[in-house]
């Protein structure tokens, strides 16, 4: 078992290398440093020696192209090598062939808003705490991760809650659960600069309203946020003025540092917002402080769809069975995704797990189609659209050669209630298999399915 962990680490190194390569290729027009593709070359050479696996016979939904009947998906070294019709994909000699006739294959699902892992970032001391990282609170043994895999999810944006104007930094994770991860670092996605990938959680509306120092009104909420961003702008200016002179730099401030990253566009704001006027407030603040924002939940987005489209703000929408439960959700509609789609807004769908269950992520997309969204749009909303909102579409979100081999094998139509996720593969490794009773328990629920801790036998004489 330990060996395979080392193996995974090797693959990971290759993945990061290739990630750079793909990025350089995709951004050919940009002035990307040429040495990044140079460092990727040895990794690419290494891939040629990896085992190749061909999944043949399935209906393949690549997302970035037309569905393929009886297609072939070729993976190697944790990456997608090729995908296409049987007569167009060359299966190399010695490749392992897996017959998946009658099944459906599509990319692993991307959840742009999840709370799995016993999240606890900002505490009650202040409404704005961007310096706090949710990654420092996550229990990787939380059974929620297993349920997410059972639902076909492979990438999550794990967010702190909405009870603050900013409750801290989010973390993007890949569900590398073919064996139990020991720490958040085993599943956290790395940015190209080696840092932990993630955004910043912000919220407005009623959730962050409480006794001072929290805001009591919407006006106060926006005031408090503007005040912090203005401070951060001054901090940014001091840093710029200091140049390389360490003595002139202001003392490091984790909160302001994070807001500077946000204003520099390095960190996306994931902004909880329901009501139409709150949505407009987010767009106003994003324009004032020039931050990149993903509108999260967007329950009344259907009322201001054109304004959202004009601001080019992507939306990550929650789809709920019934309206209400809080005043801001009273006008929630199944039609929200459809109206936004028609207005030309980029739309993803999220679970907000535990608000909806990761095992039923497809169900949210199904209800969006019930509300008028196109089927293509709904499947895109579970995959590529989300990947783009996390700045990860170079490596995930579609079955595209060069991307991570994150995919799921389904028993049928993705949007049918009767369909089950049979297998979930993450970076070329099977991380969930419904035919394994231990995995099936997480898919159906049952005795022990929500126990957080896996048995840990290190100290009791077991191997």
């Amino acid at each position, binding site marked *: 078992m330990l060996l395979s962990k080392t193996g995974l680490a090797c693959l990971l190194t290759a993945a990061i290398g290739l990630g750079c390569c793909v990025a350089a290729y995709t951004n050919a027009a940009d002035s990307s440093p040429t040495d990044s593709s140079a460092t990727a070359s040895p990794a690419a050479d290494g891939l040629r020696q990896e085992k190749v696996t061909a999944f043949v016979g399935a209906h393949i939904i690549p997302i970035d192209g037309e569905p393929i009947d009886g297609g072939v998906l070729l993976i190697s070294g944790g990456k997608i090598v090729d995908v296409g019709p049987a007569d167009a994909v060359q299966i190399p000699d010695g490749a392992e062939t897996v017959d998946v006739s009658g099944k459906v294959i599509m990319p692993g699902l991307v959840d742009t808003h999840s709370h799995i892992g016993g999240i606890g970032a900002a505490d009650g001391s202040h409404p704005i705490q961007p310096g706090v990282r949710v990654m420092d609170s996550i229990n990787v043994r939380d059974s929620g991760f297993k349920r997410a895999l059972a639902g076909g999810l492979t990438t999550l944006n794990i967010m702190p809650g909405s009870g603050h104007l900013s409750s801290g930094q989010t973390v993007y994770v890949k569900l590398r659960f073919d064996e139990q991860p020991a720490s958040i670092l085993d599943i956290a996605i790395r940015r190209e600069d080696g840092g932990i990938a993630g955004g910043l959680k912000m919220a407005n509306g009623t959730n962050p309203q409480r006794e001072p120092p929290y805001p009591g009104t919407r006006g106060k909420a926006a005031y408090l946020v503007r005040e912090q961003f203005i401070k951060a702008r001054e901090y940014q200016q001091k840093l710029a003025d200091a140049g390389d002179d360490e003595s002139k730099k202001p003392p490091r401030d984790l909160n302001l540092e994070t807001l500077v990253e946000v204003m520099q566009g390095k960190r996306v704001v994931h902004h909880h917002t329901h009501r139409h006027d709150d949505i407009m407030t987010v767009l106003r603040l994003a324009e004032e402080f020039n931050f990149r924002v993903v509108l999260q939940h967007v329950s009344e987005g259907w009322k201001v769809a054109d304004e959202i489209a004009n601001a080019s703000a992507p939306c990550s929408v929650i789809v709920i069975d019934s309206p209400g439960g809080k005043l801001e959700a009273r006008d929630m509609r199944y039609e929200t995704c459809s109206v936004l789609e028609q207005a030309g807004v980029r739309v993803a769908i999220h679970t907000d797990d535990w*608000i909806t269950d990761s095992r039923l992520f*497809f169900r949210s997309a*199904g209800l969006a189609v019930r509300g008028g969204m196109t089927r293509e749009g709904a499947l895109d909303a579970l995959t590529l659209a989300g990947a783009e909102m996390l700045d990860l579409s170079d490596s995930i979100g579609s079955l595209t050669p060069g991307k991570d081999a994150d995919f799921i094998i389904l028993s049928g139509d993705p949007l*049918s209630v009767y369909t089950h996720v049979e297998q979930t593969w993450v970076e070329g490794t099977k991380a969930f298999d419904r035919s394994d009773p231990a995995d099936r328990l997480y898919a159906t629920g049952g005795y022990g399915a929500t126990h957080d801790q896996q048995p840990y036998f290190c100290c009791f004489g077991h191997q």
Partner: protein
Amino acid sequence: MKRIALRALVILPLTVIAAVMVTSPAAAQIAVRGETVYTMVGDPIANGVVIINERKIVAVGSADDIEIPEGYRVLEAKVVTPGLIDAHSVVGLGGIDNQDQDQEQLEASNPVQPGMRAIDAYNAKDPLVEWVRTLGITTVHTGHAPGELVSGQTMIVKTYGNTVEDAVISSAYGVACTLSSDAQKAGTQSPGTRGKMLAMLRQQLIEAREYLAKLEAAGEDEAKKPARDLRLETLGQVLQGELKLIVTADRAQDIASALRLREEFGFPLVLDSAAEAYTMTDEIKAAGVPVIVHPSMYRAVGDRGNMSFETAAKLKEAGIPIALQSGYESYVPKTRVALYEAAITAANGLSFEEALATITIDAAMLLGINDRVGSIESDKDADLALYDGDPFEYTTHCVGVIINGQVVSEEVR
């Protein structure tokens, strides 16, 4: 408080307008044609017709055999089912806004309040009643929620009607009782433990038994009768079998407590939620007790940590009478939809028709209202739900709803 008051003022005129705009639905000579009609008695009918006159179904069968009388309004749909029954809900009490002024499902001043009637708490115009109606739910067993040891009475209503009096089928079906962590109090309040819950409940039932005995001893002599006591009167009805004791219990040990209590006092027991019932099938079967299974998509937390999508299928297989429910939600979604909850059981062990039965005929039988609703048969209430495909599919729409022979929704939802 100020903010809430202002908002109420704004909402009020809108509500009035909405009420005026509700058109009185055309009664009642209607023929419904369905590519498939699930009557829930016998095989589904391909190319079927249901004839409705006034409030009742007067004929159902193949289009080959039944002629649609002249002048009847004809509705068509791919799939026609009986109006759906939500076997346990709080709609009409747990209002859409989730603010203090619209939350009537739980009164926490006393852990034992069986005297409270559901009819006195039901808002027939709450938007969630309309919401579930437009998805095909025509009958709900609703009332006081789980969460207190004995939280009050429940009733059965149609999801259409200007007032509770218009809507009601059974003004008192049962008394809601909770044997779970949800009924546990903190600090010095009771009940603080499971042992205390059972002690309190037994004490109450013993008092009710004595109250009944005094009544019986008094016979016709008014002077000897004990003073009326709504609490004991209601529990007395439970002991006499006139009302069910609906016990919400999830852990196996709590289910066992409910069965033990029933053994001691002999009341009609309905198990509710029952997340771990799949570990107790022999005991539940032997007791002959029905189970209103928790919503399939309830969150697996606390006492329900071990819940399973497959519980309904396992109980059905064991021969235990079951029905599905939307349950109680304290946040979002404020109400679940029984149709959706049953759909998940159809994907997890129950056949399509078994799953449909959990929200139609089986629910009607469990609730004792199968003489009126739950199937498409002559002389039953003309309650139908119309769909443009398999009702359980996420992407299917409910396209029409008929209650008491009136077309109450033609929204596509």
